[in-house]
C-alpha cells in the first residue's frame, strides 16, 4: 500500500508554514492583551496589529489606513453592501460583475438586486475571460460600482484587471476586485491597477483561517459594517483576532518576497501535471486558459466519470483535490463557473481541480499522473454514460 499523501487542494486552503506559526505563537500564549488596552500587554498587541497592517498594505502597494481586517474573504466581499446607501443616494443604481464570481460576491449582488439595484453579469468566453468590450458596453450613467474577480477560484483564469481598473478610474466608477485567489500568488498593485476596493483571505497564502482584509481606497465614503467599539476605525468593531492578523502579515510578507521564485516553480509543476494527465487519459481536456492562469491551478474534465466518485477514489489513494461536480457540492448544482464556459453537464460533472503550491514536489505530481488515469479507467469501466458515449463514437 502506497502511503504517499499529496495535498493538491491549495485553492481550498493552504498549510500554515512554520515561520507563520512562529509569528503567531506569542499572541496565542503570553501576549494575550487586548489591543485596545492601555497597559503594556495591550500595547504589544496594538503594535503587532500595526506591523501586520503595514505588511499587508505594502504587499498591495496600499496605505496602512486603507486596510480593514475582516473575518474571511466572504466577509470582505459582503462589505460591498455597506456602499449601497451612498450609491443609491447618488443615483448610481447600476452595478457590473461577472457570472463566474465566488458565491460570496454573487449572493451579495443578489441581495443588492432585491434592494433595487440593477446588476449586469458579464459572460465569459470558453477560456473564462470577460471581454473588455462587453464591459465597456455594459457601463451606463448609473453605473456606480464594478466588481470583477482578479483570478478565478475554479479555473484560475486571471482577468484583465489593469484595463478594467483604468476604465473605471477614468469614468469615476468604483472598482472592487475579489483577489482572494490572487494575492500572494501573482502581483497585485492597487495603485498601478487602479483598484478601489479589494478582498483577500489569509489562508489562501499559508496564513491562518478566519482572517481576511477589505481594502478600501482613501476618499471613498464608507459606512460601518459592525457598530461597536473603535476597532478598524470604527468601521468594523470587535476585538481583533490578533494572532490571526499577525499570521496573515507574516504570510503575505513571505509570499510576496518569494513570489517570482514560487510562481516559477509552481507553474512548472502545474504544466507537468496538466501535460501528464492530458497525455495519459483519453477524452480529457483542460478547463480555462493556459495563458493568464494562476500558477498552481489545473482544472481538467474527464468525461464519462462523475467528479465526486473520482475525488473519493483519489482520497483513497492519498490525493486530495476538489471538483466542480454537482454531487461534490452541498448545493447539487454543477459549478456555475464551468457552466459559464459553455460546458455540457457531463463535462462539468467530470471535472477535477488540482491546485498546487510551492510545497508540492515533482514526485507529488508524478504520483498523481501515475494514479489518476487508472482511477478514471476503472470508473469509466462501470459508467453507463461512458459506454453510451463510446457506442455513439463507433456509429
Amino acid at each position: 500500500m502506497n502511503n504517499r499523501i499529496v495535498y493538491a487542494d491549495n485553492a481550498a486552503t493552504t498549510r500554515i508554514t512554520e515561520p507563520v506559526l512562529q509569528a503567531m505563537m506569542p499572541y496565542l500564549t503570553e501576549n494575550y492583551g487586548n489591543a485596545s488596552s492601555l497597559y503594556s500587554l495591550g500595547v504589544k498587541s496594538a503594535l503587532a496589529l500595526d506591523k501586520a497592517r503595514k505588511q499587508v498594505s505594502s504587499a498591495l502597494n496600499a496605505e496602512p489606513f486603507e486596510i480593514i481586517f475582516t473575518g474571511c474573504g466572504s466577509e470582505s466581499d459582503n462589505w460591498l453592501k455597506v456602499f449601497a446607501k451612498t450609491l443609491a443616494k447618488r443615483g448610481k443604481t447600476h452595478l457590473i460583475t461577472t457570472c463566474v464570481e465566488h458565491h460570496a460576491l454573487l449572493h451579495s449582488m443578489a441581495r443588492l438586486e432585491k434592494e433595487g439595484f440593477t446588476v449586469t453579469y458579464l459572460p465569459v468566453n470558453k477560456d473564462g475571460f470577460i471581454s473588455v468590450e462587453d464591459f465597456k458596453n455594459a457601463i451606463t450613467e448609473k453605473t456606480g460600482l464594478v466588481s470583477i474577480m482578479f483570478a478565478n477560484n475554479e479555473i484560475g483564469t486571471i482577468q484583465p484587471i489593469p484595463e478594467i481598473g483604468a476604465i473605471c478610474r477614468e469614468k469615476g466608477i468604483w472598482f472592487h476586485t475579489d483577489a482572494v485567489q490572487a494575492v500572494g500568488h501573482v502581483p497585485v498593485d492597487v495603485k498601478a491597477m487602479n483598484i478601489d476596493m479589494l478582498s483577500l483571505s489569509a489562508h489562501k497564502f499559508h496564513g491562518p483561517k478566519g482572517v481576511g482584509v477589505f481594502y478600501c481606497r482613501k476618499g471613498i465614503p464608507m459606512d460601518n459594517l459592525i457598530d461597536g467599539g473603535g476597532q478598524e476605525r470604527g468601521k468594523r468593531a470587535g476585538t481583533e483576532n490578533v494572532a490571526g492578523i499577525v499570521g496573515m502579515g507574516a504570510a503575505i510578507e513571505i509570499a510576496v518576497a518569494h513570489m517570482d521564485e514560487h510562481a516559477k516553480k509552481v507553474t512548472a509543476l502545474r504544466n507537468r501535471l496538466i501535460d501528464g494527465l492530458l497525455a495519459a487519459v483519453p477524452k480529457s481536456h483542460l478547463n480555462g486558459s493556459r495563458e493568464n492562469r494562476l500558477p498552481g491551478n489545473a482544472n481538467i474534465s474527464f468525461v464519462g466519470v462523475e467528479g465526486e466518485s473520482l475525488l473519493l477514489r483519489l482520497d483513497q489513494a492519498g490525493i486530495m483535490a476538489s471538483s466542480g461536480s454537482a454531487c461534490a457540492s452541498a448545493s447539487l448544482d454543477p459549478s456555475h463557473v464551468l457552466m459559464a464556459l459553455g460546458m455540457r453537464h457531463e463535462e462539468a460533472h467530470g471535472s477535477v481541480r488540482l491546485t498546487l503550491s510551492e510545497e508540492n514536489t515533482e514526485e507529488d505530481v508524478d504520483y498523481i499522473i501515475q494514479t489518476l488515469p487508472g482511477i478514471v479507467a476503472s470508473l469509466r469501466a462501470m459508467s453507463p454514460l461512458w459506454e453510451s458515449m463510446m457506442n455513439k463514437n463507433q456509429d
Partner: protein
Amino acid sequence: MIYSAKVMEHFANPRNVGELADANGIGEVGNAKCGDIMKIYLKIENDTIVDVRFKTFGCGAAIATSSMATELIKGKPLSEALKLTNKAVVEALDGLPPVKIHCSVLSEQAIKAAIADYYTRLGIDPTPFVGKLDSEEEHEHGCACDCDE
C-alpha cells in the same frame, strides 16, 4: 459531508459491477444532467432474480446504493425485489447524508425498470406488477439538482 463506513466500503468495493450477457431484464434510469445514471442487468428464472450486475455513473452515494441494492435483490423473488424501497437501501448502508438521499431513489427505479423490461420482453404488460414507471419528468422531480432545461 461524511459518508458512513459502510457506504465507503461499498463505494471502494462495489458488488456485482459489470454487465450480464444473458440478462433478460435491463433497466436504465437517470441522466447526465443530474449527474447520475444507473443501468441494471437482471437474469430472472422462475420469477426469481438469479443474477444481477450494474453500471453506475454517479457520486459515491450513487455507486454505494447501486451496490447495496443489487446485494439486497440477488436471489430474491421478483415480488420481493419490487418491494425494495430506497429507504431500505439507505438503512442497509447505515444512512446517507441528507443531500444524498435522492441518489438512493435511482437504484429502486432502476430495478423496477429492469423488471418491467423483463415482463415486456415476455409480452406481458408490466404495469400490474411494477406499477406506472416514473417518467423522465417524475425522475427529475426526484432529482434534487437543477435539471429543468
